[in-house]
């Protein structure tokens, strides 16, 4: 069985994110990191390999992004992936969700995975949708926000929380599964794995290498145009108390609640 894990480089959570007003795109400068949700996807792949229910031949990390995205692949490899694929091409800049999903699907097609895993959302775009887009292009069944996944020959049994409670769904392989952060506790990479990550095979591919039609990606190929950025209605800032003396803090909270007749 071959598992592909889709990963993404995102701005570090501690860095203030902004939109470049001239392009309408997210300013992706500054400190970067592997999307935290994707570490759960890699860990899920490792647990399938170590679980012993099926034979895992290979775990391949796949990303799309500029040259700096290589670092996300190194991190993914240090966490357990055997090798990685980097889709990078100037023609991809400005791709919307549908174009990105299409490009990733074409890249995955070449790998013929039995299972595609990804994090349920990315830290920057707050979008839960890439998995379902990729799945439709690959003509595979798909489930998102999975928090428990048992693998058997040819199928998965997945659990997730949906609108009315917890659902248990059987999914035949090959499939695309996006995982939530409750699915596992990702391991820390060993120093040896970190040092060795740069030596593992990394294939850089451009759109022509994987059969992506130039007209379907990038700004030109995107079906949605975002712009007209504006600020949300101002909300009066709340009162902030730094707790130094807890007795005093509690008095202040009580007074605040009293004032609003909440006690």
């Amino acid at each position, binding site marked *: 069985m071959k598992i592909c894990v889709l990963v993404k480089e995102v701005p570090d959570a501690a860095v203030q994110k902004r939109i470049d007003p001239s392009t309408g795109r997210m300013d992706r400068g500054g400190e970067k990191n592997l999307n935290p949700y994707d570490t759960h996807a890699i860990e899920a792949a490792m647990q399938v390999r170590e679980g012993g229910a099926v034979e895992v031949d290979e775990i391949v990390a796949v990303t799309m992004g500029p040259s700096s995205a290589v670092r996300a692949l190194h991190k993914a490899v240090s966490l357990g992936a055997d090798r990685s694929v980097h889709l990078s091409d100037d023609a991809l800049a400005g791709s919307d969700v*549908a174009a990105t999903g299409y490009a990733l699907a074409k890249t995955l097609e070449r790998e013929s995975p039995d299972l595609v895993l990804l994090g349920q959302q990315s830290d920057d775009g707050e979008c839960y949708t890439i998995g379902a887009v990729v799945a439709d292009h690959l*003509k*595979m069944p798909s489930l*998102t926000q999975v928090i428990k996944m048992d693998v058997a020959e040819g199928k998965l049994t997945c659990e997730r*929380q949906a609108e009315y409670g917890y659902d248990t769904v059987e999914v035949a392989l090959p499939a695309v599964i996006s995982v939530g952060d409750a699915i596992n506790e990702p391991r820390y990479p060993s120093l040896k794995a970190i040092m060795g990550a740069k030596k593992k095979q990394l294939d850089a591919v451009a759109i022509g290498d994987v059969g992506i039609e130039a007209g379907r990606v990038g700004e030109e190929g995107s079906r*949605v145009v975002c712009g007209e950025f504006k600020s949300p209605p101002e909300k009066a800032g709340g009162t902030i108390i730094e707790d130094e003396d*807890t007795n005093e803090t*509690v008095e202040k*909270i009580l007074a605040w609640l009293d004032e609003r007749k909440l006690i």
Partner: protein
Amino acid sequence: MAQNDILVYALHYEGEFNKNSLGAVSEGARVAGELGGECHVLVLGGDDLSDDLAGSLGAHGAAKVLRVKGPEGLAQPVVDGMAQVMDAGGHRYALFGGGLLGFEIGAGLAARLNAGVTMEVTAVRVEGGELLAERPILGDSSISTSRYRERGIVIGRLNAFELRAVGGGAAAIEDVDVEFSPWSTQATMVTRGEQRGADVNIEDADILIAGGRGLGKAEGFEALEELAGALGGAVAATRAVVDAGWYPYAAQIGQTGKTVAPKLYLAAGISGAIQHKVGMQSSENIVAINKDSNAPIFEFSDLGIVGDLNKIVPKLTEAVKARKGG
């Protein structure tokens, strides 16, 4: 013109439509009216989709209900149905209310139709005969507007679209035969809607004390229960701690849980992710206790306390008890 008709998906469960879906039908009817078209609604399920139930969508503005027989609770069969209906009917736009299934269906449909898609939409409007969608971005610090080159898929944020009764009669019902894609039938529901943990009621409480991952462990909820007892309220939880098994699903706030608007919402150890915010932001008074001064919850709380909840909550409970006793 057919392309001005809007196709909405309505989710149902145990004989009732989802409130967010009904909001999307109401909003779909409003914008279809402005575009000069009709609001059509696709529903998918078994025999429980009776004529009465399907027709009842007319009260929210649906002109026509397209009824498909198929497996409930899964996205891909609905993608097949909506793609077929939109191709046959020429609909330019599809609209979804907030919720997990809408995200999945909308994304799959965008891939199938090579359409533009916007999620977490908080408002839609018509301008020059086109539908525009507004979406908050970057932790709600900015709002961007989406325009669609050709077809557009709009996925609402939870509770973004207001449910309205427009007093329409029963909607016309059309049964549609859909040939499902081979991959759409490769996922099968084993059990649906399982409730985990005790059946608690948080929706009627005037005061809610909510706990998140910052509690550190399941036992952290004991202190919240004592505070809730002292204040005469109930205890709620975030998705993360419910998934971890620390607290019952019935007490969960947010995207796949309950939406509440109590007089007081006290959030302890909750960072304030969008998925949580959408379920409680209408609360009258929001108090947050968190040790991370950068937690997003401080951006929408009325009173924020930066500190250790393990120190603050027990003392607050004592003080409330003393006040009420004295």
